[in-house]
């Protein structure tokens, strides 16, 4: 009896070891993958240039749109600075800002700048008369993906996009679409427009663009929740991308990385520039370079010029922020926060992003962000 029980335990232990080692192995595997998808030399170069702050446990949370970028940064920073722990939870911008305003995180990632009442609330978390400020850190193009077999280079403009997502254009061979794509063989099937069923910064930025560039065709107020009546929905960018991939006649919006990952063709946008602009990291960076800083003081909230006609600037671009206190950050994490954000805003930190479907900050803005970070106290 005892003997059998012992062997039972032993086999259990062997099993546990096998399982855990398999887990360790797969973990290594996935690490290697993400390493190879970012530029290969990136991490070692980055390691050399990272100036480590004092050892600390940094907690941060927020935007899911930043998650892939944060993963790369956190990994590189922790590799270079042993003893520092950074934990970024992609809980969504709303939850991230809420946690920051409760004082439980060192900084928050957010898809939209702080609202006035949130700035007021932040004054109780930031000591010494400080307040929460927005630091633009990650930009990226939002791609409009479509599923039309036989149509390769679909071109649309802002008014047409607005009408499609408001169900005012219901067929693919609508004259407005034909006019923009004279040579394409457009089917007469109905358009299946997909939006996000959950609230999201992607929706917020997409509708901001429609409102900014085609105000007369998009009558809804902005916001993270989809406002238009019709159309179909799916949860998360991955859900929308999956629906576009499997539904003929579908069109939907999501971050560029999802389109690349599932080989979904994306719409080129006719902005009035000399040629229609395709979604790409470079084109998004050009768009951000065109933006104005509207934040006051140390706040660097950006306002994008959605009606831009600049050549090669992709107007459907989002900018996400890190939110921290300008004065009165928690003393025990201040140094590490500054060091980490400084790395993130550095050339090395930004360069590693384009492979992930993000757009690096243009030099001028990155320089300003870095000087703001050094002034944090």
């Amino acid at each position, binding site marked *: 009896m005892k003997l059998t029980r012992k062997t039972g335990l032993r086999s259990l232990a062997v099993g546990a070891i096998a399982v855990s080692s398999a887990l360790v192995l797969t973990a290594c595997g996935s690490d290697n993958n993400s390493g190879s998808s970012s530029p290969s030399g990136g991490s070692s170069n980055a390691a050399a240039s990272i100036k480590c702050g004092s050892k600390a446990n940094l907690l941060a949370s927020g935007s*899911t749109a930043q998650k892939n970028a944060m993963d790369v940064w956190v990994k590189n920073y922790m590799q270079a600075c042993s003893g520092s722990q950074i934990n970024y939870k992609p*809980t*969504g*911008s*709303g*939850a991230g*800002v*809420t946690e920051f305003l409760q004082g439980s995180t060192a900084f928050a990632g957010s898809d939209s700048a702080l609202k006035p009442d949130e700035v007021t609330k932040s004054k109780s978390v930031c000591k010494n008369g400080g307040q929460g400020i927005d630091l633009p850190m990650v930009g990226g193009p939002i791609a409009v993906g479509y599923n039309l077999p036989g149509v390769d280079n679909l071109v649309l403009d802002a008014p047409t996009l607005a009408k499609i997502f408001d169900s005012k254009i219901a067929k693919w061979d609508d004259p407005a679409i034909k006019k923009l794509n004279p040579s394409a063989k457009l089917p007469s*099937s*109905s358009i*299946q427009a*997909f939006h996000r*069923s*959950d*609230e*999201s*910064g992607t929706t917020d930025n997409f509708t901001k663009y429609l409102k900014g560039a085609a105000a007369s065709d998009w009558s809804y*107020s902005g*916001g*993270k*929740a*989809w*406002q238009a*009546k*019709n*159309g*179909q*929905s*799916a*949860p998360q960018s991955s*859900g929308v991308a*999956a*629906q576009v991939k*499997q*539904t*003929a*006649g579908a069109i939907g919006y999501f971050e560029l990385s999802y389109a690349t990952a599932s080989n979904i063709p994306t719409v080129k946008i006719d902005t009035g520039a000399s040629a229609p602009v395709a979604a790409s990291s470079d084109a998004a960076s050009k768009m951000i370079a065109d933006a104005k800083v509207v934040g006051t003081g140390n706040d660097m909230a950006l306002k994008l010029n959605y009606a831009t006609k600049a050549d090669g600037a992709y107007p459907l671009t989002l900018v996400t922020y890190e939110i921290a206190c300008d004065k009165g950050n928690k003393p025990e994490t201040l140094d590490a926060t500054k060091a980490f954000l400084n790395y993130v805003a550095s050339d090395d930190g930004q360069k590693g992003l384009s492979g992930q479907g993000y757009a690096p900050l243009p030099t001028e803005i990155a320089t300003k962000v870095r000087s703001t970070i050094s002034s944090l106290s």
Partner: protein
Amino acid sequence: MDIVNSPGEHPPNSRQPAVTRLGDRVFLGMSRGSGILLLVIMAAIAVFLTVRAIHAISLDHSDFFTTFEWNANLQPPSFGIAVLAYGTVVSSLIAMIIAVPVSVGIALFISHYAPRKLATPLAYLVDLLAAVPSIVYGLWGGLYLVPHLQGLNLWLNEYLSWTGIFHKSDPSSAARSLFTVGILLAIMIVPIITNVSREVFRQVPKAHEEAALALGATRWEVVRMSVLPFARSGIISASMLGLGRALGETMAVATVLSASPVLSARLLDPVGGTFAQNIAAKFAEADNFGRDALIASGLVLFVITLLVNGAARLIIARRKEYSGANA
């Protein structure tokens, strides 16, 4: 067979004053404590939901019960539960219509028809179905069931669109509708209803069945005359358990349903929403007030579930005298 005990068989000392020992007192305390704990938890949930909900509803700029849209994070906030209540009830109803007959059939087959060699693995398989996490059902539903239901949708639209409920506004839209959600929920609640029903069927007194057989009844007549009447209240309880899961199912619905604030009697249109799905979709990006608003919708779901359970208790209580369970 194991529950057959004749009525007069009380333990001999059951009427004498009980001798209490330490063990008795400990056990009494523990069981009473568990009972009280349950009440406390229920009360805590109810109070929490009510307090947060009243705050949110009082600031709602449109009628909470008749508004379709859910814009709790806008200024001014405007949100309502009409679409969510309708979607929750309709999808659960579809699930019940499909799942109850199928589950009773499976349970009868396992307990009365199948040879033992088949019954055991089949019962095991049903148990296994109950252990699949709902997100897996959701993924399967979204990636497999939805595309494969398109044919059925088109067929229903072609031959049954005169009923109104099976008319599809845009036949080429994907089958991500309340109808599909109902089918998926049905699959998810079949194991619960089957398991409980099977246990009830096995407790039908052998004497009842043998009596029916002795009267020359066929197997179907045995089931109809002795098994089903005895098990009726048990089947209702089982269905209520299943309904509870269907009403509150979150991830599977959120993955499969194309949610939008449209209330439509056309079951095949990709519109609608449910309470749990809406909470899952809106929670991550909700600010403090938005969370309170979602909690208010949770309170409504809580009340609906209580009402349904209460109704089920009533039915069971009324049926009991006819069921033969007290024979």
